[in-house]
């Protein structure tokens, strides 16, 4: 119980851990026949490793780290397109810092910047918008990356640019959505998932309704969870109780932040600006139907794909992932990060080979950062 003292309320944590153990025993979960619970969100993956929750819970519970880190699921071809855009002389390419070090086929955005491209890290698309106002003679592109939590920010920014009639601001939209990959995982015959801990901040935007199919069509429980370690433990307990009682429901442990209906203003802005693409490629998961968004016709002048003729499907080729990279296997829960031959050798947070090593929300980086001796264990 090395980490329990670090909890804000160690007594409460111990009580929930004891309850988890009790229910796990009632279900008959063991190390050899574990219950598989996927935490979808990368923030949860980070918290699980930070607090060693995977070691604190009953040994019959196995966490499968889901595809919920937008940087980690970004295929190399998207990075290549970013670099191609950034290398145009008239362009200032703006991005969240997270995307800077994701390896592309030729280079990352960080390397492109070192080679002279005007790549700038911004905290918010609003700052890219402000940059466009200040540099009317340059083309400012914002790299729209992220799940439902982040998509409203670029939708609002595009609406604002339209109101102002800006002509030098575009978004390179690569936004993705959470429910389609969950469906893809549930349809995968190799997948052995028993339940989900749902993303808190994505749900704050979309509400709980979009997850109903998981319970209704697949008979699996999902509990939307907050980010405190105690939130996560309570959510795991709620999933286990559903399994024990033979229920499959969408429950909300994080109701203090997540309203059932989500955030209507954000949903409306996203609906106004974006539409689903027929299909979109995910690193490690392949093409998933209706899992990505593109800018609608009405806002095409703010669409970098339209303006520069670069973007999803325009290059007509899928790019292979780097040699020896097992990101796909890790992402689908088939192996743990230390089982990748590159882990800690060809691939470290300083020199990432695969995207799961780039962000602290990636399973490999989290293992590396907090794993210690744990990383030595066989998967």
């Amino acid at each position, binding site marked *: 119980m090395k980490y329990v003292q670090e909890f804000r309320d160690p007594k409460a944590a111990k009580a929930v851990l004891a309850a988890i153990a009790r229910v796990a025993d009632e279900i008959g979960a063991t190390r050899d026949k574990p219950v598989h619970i996927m935490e979808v969100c990368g923030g949860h993956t980070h*918290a699980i490793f930070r607090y060693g929750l995977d070691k604190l819970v009953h040994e019959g519970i196995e966490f499968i780290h889901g595809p919920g*880190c937008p940087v980690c699921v970004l295929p190399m071809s998207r990075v290549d397109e970013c670099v191609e855009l950034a290398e145009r002389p008239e362009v200032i390419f703006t991005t969240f810092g997270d995307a800077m070090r994701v390896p592309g086929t030729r280079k990352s955005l960080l390397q492109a910047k070192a080679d002279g491209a005007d790549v700038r890290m911004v*905290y918010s698309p609003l*700052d890219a918008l*402000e940059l466009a106002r200040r540099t009317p003679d340059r083309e400012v592109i914002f790299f729209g990356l992220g799940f439902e939590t982040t998509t409203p920010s670029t939708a609002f920014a595009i609406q604002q640019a339209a109101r102002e009639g800006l002509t030098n601001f575009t978004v390179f939209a690569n936004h993705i959505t959470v429910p389609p990959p969950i469906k893809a995982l549930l349809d995968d015959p190799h997948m052995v998932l028993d339940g989900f801990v749902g993303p808190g901040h994505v749900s704050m935007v979309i509400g709980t309704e979009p997850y109903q199919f998981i319970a209704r069509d697949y008979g699996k429980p999902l509990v939307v969870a907050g980010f405190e370690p105690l939130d996560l433990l309570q959510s795991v307990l709620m999933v286990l109780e559903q399994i024990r009682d033979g229920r499959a429901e969408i429950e909300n442990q994080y109701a203090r932040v997540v309203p059932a209906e989500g*955030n209507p203003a954000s949903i409306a802005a996203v609906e106004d600006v974006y539409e689903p693409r027929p299909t979109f490629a995910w690193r490690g998961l392949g093409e998933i139907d209706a899992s990505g968004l593109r800018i609608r016709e009405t806002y095409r002048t703010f669409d970098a794909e339209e303006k520069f003729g670069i973007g999803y499907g325009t290059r007509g080729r899928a790019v292979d992932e780097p040699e020896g990279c097992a990101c796909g296997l890790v992402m689908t829960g088939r192996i743990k990060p230390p089982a990748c031959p590159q882990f800690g050798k060809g691939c470290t947070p300083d020199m990432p080979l695969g995207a799961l090593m780039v962000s602290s929300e990636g399973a490999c980086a989290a293992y590396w950062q907090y794993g210690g001796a744990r990383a030595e264990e066989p998967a």
Partner: protein
Amino acid sequence: MCLGIPGQITAITDAERMMATASVSGVRREVCVAPIAQGPLEDLVGEWALIHVGFAMSRIDPDEAAKTLEALRALGEVEEELAAMRASAAMLEETR
């Protein structure tokens, strides 16, 4: 990047564009309050919200704000967010 960070709305700066100033762990930052705007904007002053990439995404109570800040600090997310805010502001400053 997806977590967001609690901040307190301190003033409305541009009602038409729904922009406000927020204080995020001592750092002042312009944020868009469109996602949480209901009724008069002035009512938001003093309120706490989860700020994500420059947008106030959800109103939270002060107690929840304090707990979330603590959880994020333990994950090293607070420093990361504040550093990104500062760097972005400095970049814009240079482009005046």
